[in-house]
């Protein structure tokens, strides 16, 4: 693609998919973990089977970890502004 102009680049910087996924996992992880810690019923499934495992805590905490990993990834390798015309690509023919 040819140059899209500075505002578009700024927008795409704010719009980093990794951060959106981090938000999703953070909120999911938080809600699920808290409901696991608060509710005594977390070892009992929705249809009343006792699995003996606090599923909410066991899945909520890994989700929080995943959220942190995505944030770290986004911080370590921030979105690059694509160079105006990549030398190896011949992308000027797009209509």
């Amino acid at each position: 693609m040819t140059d899209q102009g500075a505002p578009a680049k700024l927008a795409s910087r704010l719009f980093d998919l990794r951060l959106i996924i981090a938000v999703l996992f953070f909120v999911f992880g938080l809600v699920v973990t808290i409901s696991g810690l608060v509710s005594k019923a977390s070892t009992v499934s929705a249809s009343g089977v006792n699995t003996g495992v606090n599923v909410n805590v066991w899945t909520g905490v890994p989700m929080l970890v995943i959220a942190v990993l995505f944030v770290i990834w986004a911080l370590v390798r921030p979105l690059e502004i694509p160079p105006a015309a990549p030398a190896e690509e011949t992308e000027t023919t797009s209509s």
Partner: protein
Amino acid sequence: MHVLADANLRLNAGPVDYALIGIYFVLVLGIGALARRSVSSSLDFFLSGRSLPAWVTGLAFISANLGAVEIFGMTANGAQYGVPTVHYYWIGAIPAMVFLGLVMMPFYYGSKVRSVPEFMLRRFGRFAHWVNALSFAVAQVLISGVNLYALATVVNLLLGWPLWLSVVIGAVIVLAYTTLGGMRAAVYNEVMQFFVIVAMLVPLTLVGLHEVGGWKGLEAKITSANANAAQQLHSWPGTNLTGIHNSVLSVIGIIFGLGFVLSFGYWTTNFAEVQRALSAKSMSAARRTPLIGAYPKTFIVLAIFIPGMIAAVVSPQLAAYKASGGTLNNGVTYNNAIELLIGNLLPNGMLGVAIAGLVAAFMAGMAANISSFNTVFTYDIYQRYIKKDASDEHYLRVGRIATVVACLIAILTALIAGNFGNIMDYLQTLFGFFNAPLFATFILGMFWKRMSPVAGGVGLIVGTVSAIVVDRLNAYHVLNLSGQGASFVAASAAFVMDIVVSVIVTLFTMPKPDSELVGLVWSLTPRDALKQAEAGEGGWYRKPAVLGGGVLVIAVVLNIVFW
């Protein structure tokens, strides 16, 4: 045996669960609104401006397929057939995805076509183009309707909402983000959906395995409950999956029918898939799209067929249904495997995540259908045959209108889809009719420059008709194939007939001049162009051949583990 009504599948979703589902929808629509700012041309709308990194397109590539067919169909296969379900992945999808990335993508991305039908147009001319564009557009709209219907039945079963309400809400949400943000919104959402689906499947698998006492416990329970336990616990020869009693023929059926024809046809020529790779930012990223997608694809089957097998053990209703050989009428079928397992194992909280995951799966599938439909409609039908030289803005507007119309047709299809029986069979049948001959024509056309335009069109028609004939012969019991074997045979017949007819017709018709085939046919594409395709973007691990080889090795190892 007590009779069970639909209400037995009803999940006791609590406020927490609804809150989690709500949060998910807010993010889905948020992505649509954010992506809107990046749409300024039709190429932005249809192919995301060819700007996406490989990991994004790679995950979207498999997510586009991780819809209704996959989650419900494959857990159902797991519950019914057991381990042989893995063939859809390790024999089917993986080699085909590697082939797409290594062999075919240089032609797709390198020729700068904007759709698969457009490739057909340049290689074979108008006739083949029409056949491909039209059949694809119709199939996508119908399938998106089926996805929508499946979504509505699940929401109806789990939460008790009326069918029409879920159909309309599902369609409106998909419509909102695909018309606003175009391909970028669809792809970003597909990636997010992928993670939500994984967040549903992986805990479900682990809790399920804990419940049955690990893999050994599952084996013991399957063995004690089933006469054909050995077939269910070993991937080969998979006679229960194919319905072909002879072991050798069954293996051939799996490798040639499922592995080669059906899967190569689906993964390499289905524009809903290929479109994701065409949205990548460079040739290297486009080639890596299916290769990166192949890695999670290889492992996710474990979190699909194992829950299916567990469901048939853990759920008393499904266990009773399976013990009866699928004849018991107790309100559940194999297609309910995943819902039953979710209800049996997950507490409120994770339940909300799981329902969000199921809804995500349907919307991913439907959005892929819709976004590939609007591209083919706008570029291949509207721009080519209806209004040729309009402004780019005009085509962008047409694309948005096409999206709206497609969603409306999908709603109608969904509302009448209840009349078709097994959704999985219906979709398989559709894919078999269109994709297998398409793959034959493609592969011949890419490697045989002599193949004429007329042969391209006639081959497609004869191939499709052959698939329909085999399907009908089986439907009227002239052929006796149970299980999934019928679609394997239909696809193989379509492939062989397409090749034979194409070769014969070519010998009596005029080929295209070589000058028009540069970049489209292997022998006429400059070696430099292919060399450039070999170049990675730095790092040996980004080389397509390394990525492709690596995933094939993993698939072979897993195949041996589950032998």
